[in-house]
């Protein structure tokens, strides 16, 4: 336990001083994006990993958060940073609606309903041009020139998201969520209001995902429906981050975010310019291979199967075996 705390403090200090030492905007940008994915992945994990309600539609909440910030800035003329608060709030409203509709279904049917929900809202955002500017997208002016401010905002957001989820999972809510995942009927027979707690899980999850979306608006300064409501860049990526890192573990999505963003970037940049250009086209295939590998050999993800990795790759015997 002590060793873990020490490790976390070192890791925290490392990320605190990282942008002060590494001045490359490119690497700072990468870590900012990773932090954002830590938030989205952890939120997805709360709903899907712990509560067992697998969502294929987290782009709904990401996009609503981003558009809230963008529309507030362009239509109402208030700083897009207010979107960090209101984006989370409006995402929760979207979450309430999604829950109202989709929680009537269970298991794969719930997943399919959220998948459809994500596509529906993307089409709405594309066609409701008076509000969202449609495919033209929303362009705002970045508040800060340097990446440092964005870096620390994303850092605080990621840390607080993980910490809040950690607190929830230690509380009795956490037990209710897990019991719903394990057996929904048994949980409700034991007196748990399953629809209430499924909605609470969804609301917390949508709030943080919406904050991440609003942060994306502020940071990238440009959004359009194809990006923020994207099925494969947001919804599927959220699932991959969770699965690769480790479903139903606190640190899994954080590790998953590093791996997935790192992999995506390695391919996009053709292995940082070392490999021929055509390889950048292969990143979808690499994702597919990684998922197959993880499902076959590390069904619980990198964090969930960490002891197995240590045993098989590093040949380290577990100390308390």
């Amino acid at each position, binding site marked *: 336990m002590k060793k873990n705390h020490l490790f976390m403090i070192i890791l925290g200090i490392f990320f605190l001083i990282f942008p002060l030492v590494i001045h490359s905007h490119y690497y700072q940008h990468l870590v900012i994006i990773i932090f954002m994915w830590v938030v989205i992945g952890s939120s997805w994990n709360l709903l899907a990993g712990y509560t067992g309600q697998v969502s294929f539609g987290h782009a709904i909440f990401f996009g609503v958060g981003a558009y809230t910030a963008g529309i507030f800035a362009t239509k109402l003329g208030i700083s897009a940073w207010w979107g960090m608060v209101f984006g989370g709030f409006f995402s929760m409203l979207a979450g309430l609606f999604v829950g109202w509709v989709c929680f009537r279904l269970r298991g794969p049917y719930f997943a399919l309903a959220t998948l459809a929900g994500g596509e529906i809202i993307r089409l709405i955002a594309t066609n409701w041009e008076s509000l969202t500017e449609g495919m033209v997208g929303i362009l705002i002016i970045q508040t800060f020139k340097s990446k440092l401010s964005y870096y620390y905002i994303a850092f605080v957001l990621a840390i607080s998201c993980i910490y809040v989820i950690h607190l929830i999972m230690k509380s009795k809510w956490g037990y209710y969520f*897990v*019991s719903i995942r394990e*057996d929904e*009927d*048994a949980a*409700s*027979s*034991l*007196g748990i209001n*399953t629809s209430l707690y499924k909605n609470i899980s969804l609301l917390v999850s949508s709030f943080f995902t919406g904050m991440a979306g609003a942060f994306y608006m502020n940071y990238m300064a440009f959004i359009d429906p194809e990006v923020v409501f994207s099925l494969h860049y947001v919804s599927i990526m959220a699932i991959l981050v969770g699965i690769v890192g480790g479903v139903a573990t606190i640190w899994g999505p954080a590790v998953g975010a590093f791996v997935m963003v790192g992999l995506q970037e390695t391919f996009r940049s053709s292995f940082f310019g070392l490999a021929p250009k055509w390889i950048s086209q292969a990143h979808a295939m690499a994702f597919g291979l990684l998922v197959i590998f993880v499902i076959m050999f590390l069904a619980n993800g990198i964090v969930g199967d960490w002891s197995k990795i240590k045993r098989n790759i590093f040949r380290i015997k577990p100390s308390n075996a």
Partner: protein
Amino acid sequence: MLRVNGINVFYGDLQVLWDITFEVKEKEILVLVGSNGAGKSTTLKTISSLLTPASGTIEFNDIRLDHLPPNKIIEQGVVHVPEGRRLFPEMSVEENLIMGSLYGEAKAKRNGTMDYVYSLFPRLKERRKQMAGTLSGGEQQMLAVGRGLMSKPKLMMFDEPSLGLSPILVQDIFGLIKKINQEGVTILLVEQNVTQTLAMCDRAYVLENGRNVLEGTGKELMANDHVREVYLGI
């Protein structure tokens, strides 16, 4: 104590219970027997509100259960030990027991009840930090019973507690149900194991194809020609 009045239950368009009526009296052991698909489990699920009857009423001590959501049933003192245990496999034994006592009096008396459950099942105490999914079948059934007891029920409903257990364990479980009953808990038991259950129960009903066809004391039914032919194979 529990009064089921003419319930009709459907899965979609398919009617599975036809006008089921029966009564459980205070402190007795009542058994519903019948073959596969007779509607025994459906009856229990309907009492637990996991299914809603299209018509008919269910009353427990004069409180209507059929309009309550499933999570309110347990607060009335009715607990369902479902078929196939339905534990939370990735929670420890102790956590599973705690999940049985979330509200009201059961929560206030949680520690005392847990000691009682551990005294009934010393095996569970030995394994209280172990994941429920890693227990053997018999131990899982004990845990399911223990989790039910944690809610301090007035009425306990068991759905095929003998399922998948060896004959010796089946006897243990039935002996235990009898013991729980002697301590003042009313029992509603659903079983396919007709011989043993008829021997231990006070009264029984026979369900066939979703209909209530016979009722009587255990002894009466043991002597009934139809029961002997169809269920006992004599």
